[in-house]
């Protein structure tokens, strides 16, 4: 049996679950500069750190890489990628308090008209990377996210599928 809590409030939390989770992800992205990027080549997975920035609607994640890198080659071979962004602090409390978001999606270079718009978003988050980003040997990439997997409280996992 249940103590009376007013069923209305429960309904409200339920309805706003999507926006609440979206808000959580947005906050996590704002708090972090680096993401772990996972690519693969011929079945060999490969992970490395990249400086990332999300699009306003969270449907895309942007990063920049030199074209000579292994990750760029991997993406050329297979555009499917994964990204991990988390707020761990390397303390015991991480097991209960850290949150992590895994994204899966497809990477592709941003070119032409859209490039300026994306660069503005990216540099607003990472102004110190201005020279790196504008180097002709670098590529600006966008990951079109299909699904976010949000992990909290050690084992609680929610999926957010982009509509």
């Amino acid at each position: 049996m249940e103590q009376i809590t007013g069923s209305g409030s429960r309904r409200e939390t339920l309805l706003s679950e999507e926006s609440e989770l979206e808000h959580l992800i947005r906050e996590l992205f704002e708090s972090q500069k680096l993401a772990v990027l996972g690519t693969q080549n011929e079945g060999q997975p490969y992970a490395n750190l990249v400086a990332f920035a999300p699009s306003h609607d969270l449907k895309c994640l942007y990063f920049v890489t030199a074209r000579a890198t292994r990750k760029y080659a991997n993406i050329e071979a297979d555009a499917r990628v994964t990204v991990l962004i988390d707020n761990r602090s390397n303390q015991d409390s991480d097991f209960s308090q850290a949150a992590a978001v895994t994204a899966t999606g497809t990477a592709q270079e941003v070119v032409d008209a859209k490039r300026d718009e994306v660069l503005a978003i990216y540099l607003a988050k990472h102004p110190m990377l201005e020279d790196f980003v504008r180097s002709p040997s670098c590529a600006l990439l966008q990951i079109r996210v299909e699904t976010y997997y949000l992990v909290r409280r050690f084992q609680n996992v929610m999926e957010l599928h982009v509509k």
Partner: protein
Amino acid sequence: MELVLSLDQIGSDDRESVGGKSLALATMVKNGMKVPEALCLKADAYHRYLETTGLGARILMEFNRKDFAEVRWEEMWDAALRIRNLFIHTPMPSDLRTSLQSVFASRLPGESVVVRSSAPGEDSLHASFAGLHESYVNVQGVDSILEHIRLVWASLWSDRALLYRQELGLDVEKSSMAVVVQKLVSGDRSGVAFGKNPNAPHQAVIESVYGLNQGLVDGSIEPDRWLLDRKNGTIVSHFPANREKEMVAGPDSTRLQTLSAEQQANPPLSEDEVARVFRLALQAEELFGSPQDVEWTFVGGELYVLQSRPITSIGAEQEQDSRAWYFTLRRSFENLRSLRTRVESELIPEMEREARFFAQRDLSNLADNELAQELASRQQAHDRWKDIYWSEFIPLAHGIRLFGQVYNDAVRPSDPYEFMDLLGATEMMSLERNRRLENMAAMIRGDSNLSDSLSNLSNPQPDHPFSLALEDFTDKFGDLSCSEELCTQGGDAIVRLLLEMASRPAAKERFRAGDVEALVESFLSRFEGEKREKMEELLDLGRASYRLRDDDNIYFGMIENQLRLAIEESKGRLAHRGNIEVDGLDPMEVINALNDPDYLPKTATVTKVDETNFEVRPRQLVGQPASPGVVRGRARVIDSPSNLFEFKAGEILVCDAVDPNMTFVVPLAAGIVERRGGMLIHGAIIAREYGLPCVTGIPNAASLIHTGDELTVDGYLGIVVKHS
């Protein structure tokens, strides 16, 4: 750093590390008041213990399964039980242990002591944790002192302390605990003094019992009570107690002892002594600058102060917080035993009578205004029983915990819920009902003619053994299993259920009598003589609590059902009027509309969904492990009684709360998932009986999971995985 301080070493700067209780004792010693000798173990020792052993991180994990503010009180019980077990199983790091051993051995050699909590922030004008943390009386020997220090630390995480902190919005993770180890003075009369009566500010209150204070504090002994005029100390009134027993120090811990005829006839204090205690309370008030709640004891003619703390300002406004209710979370054995008698012999029969009384009324024959009246009186009865449920039935469930705590302390099992196995081997009505259903299913299983004819909706002759068993079942349980479906569909619904049950082998109850007997004997063999008898009584109480925890739900379900029938009848009539949206209509509005044909009720407003770019799907949901095992299967979400009869063997029962009327499908289920959390809730108890994996405390379980979803229920870890 010095971890142990004697009272004269403590100064006012030490409050944060020694806690309010130690500081108060130190202040009184410095001002010449008579205080038993004591040592204070600073909170730093607690932090060192948590950090070195890793226990701190494990506790955090326990608590961050979900938002602290969302944790239900029953889940708090469980978390507290698990955490206490962690403290019991985690020894102090050896350097800490060695240094404390030598300190206590040299500074309190050979003494019987009291080990008390002294949490920083424990007692202030704004919050009083009085009695919320543990104290242990008559502890002997260094090793035992160290063990009890851990138990006092653990009491920082007791459910009642947690609930109180939750209510005050205090951060559990920042809490800490110092401990006072105080020489036990075996007082012959003891008591408490309130410098200011919270209910009558111009008065002071003195309460006193023979023997140690423990009996008064835990509520097992009724005290004599005096009200005094604060201005001049004159006694305004004296309320004598029905004096029977006193608490005295036993060979270990404490025990109750019958008072002599002379003691029974005379109050523990003379008027002069009442005046002395009053002066003591005033002295403390002067010293601390606010009215005090003082514990004291007389040893012969000598008056000792045991502790002093401010009376909280909120106390005056008659407990704006629910601390009084949290206190009911700690019940003494005596107290629970009399509660049991009341529940078994008065409340449950009364509830049953009332439900039968309602059941006899034919709602369809009532005029609208009569129906409104009937609905109102059922609502009233429902609300009254709900209050009783909170004030009497739930506290009685603490018999389970009391037994569990004693069992865990004595046996120290690695599974903190092992004690439930000893309690479960009792006759529960729901199990009896399920057994009878299984017997009928077995008849169908073994008789293809019977099975065929039932499948073709033709019932056997009335004198067929199956018909007789079915009739017998409906006679006995007709009322109890009278969910709306069973009532309207009658025997057919039961037959459909039985056919489904017959389609697979019988579900097994987990225990054979022999297994449980061995566990019981292994527990009891740890005690001898009088103590063993006490333990047998405690086990009996625990079993009664466990059984009633199940049965009270069934009886309350009968009342709820009668209310539901009246609501449905009423809504049916309102729906006929054509201009009223009856879904989600509040009972008060239903009554208004029944009484006035022109009344248009206010309809519930629905909040609009926020626009988002995502579709959310749960993948892995964290709750509480409530019955061990792992199983994968299809979900069947039960959100109304009518879903129950669609239940297929091997499905996973998913619901908001396992209702007593649902449990007859449990033998068909492969696992249980429930929104309500806790080990002691109905669903968890019944799942354990059948050995089914069960996870409870999944917020929004019934809305995040849909019928047909493929689930894994992990009853070890307390998680549910939804496969895509």
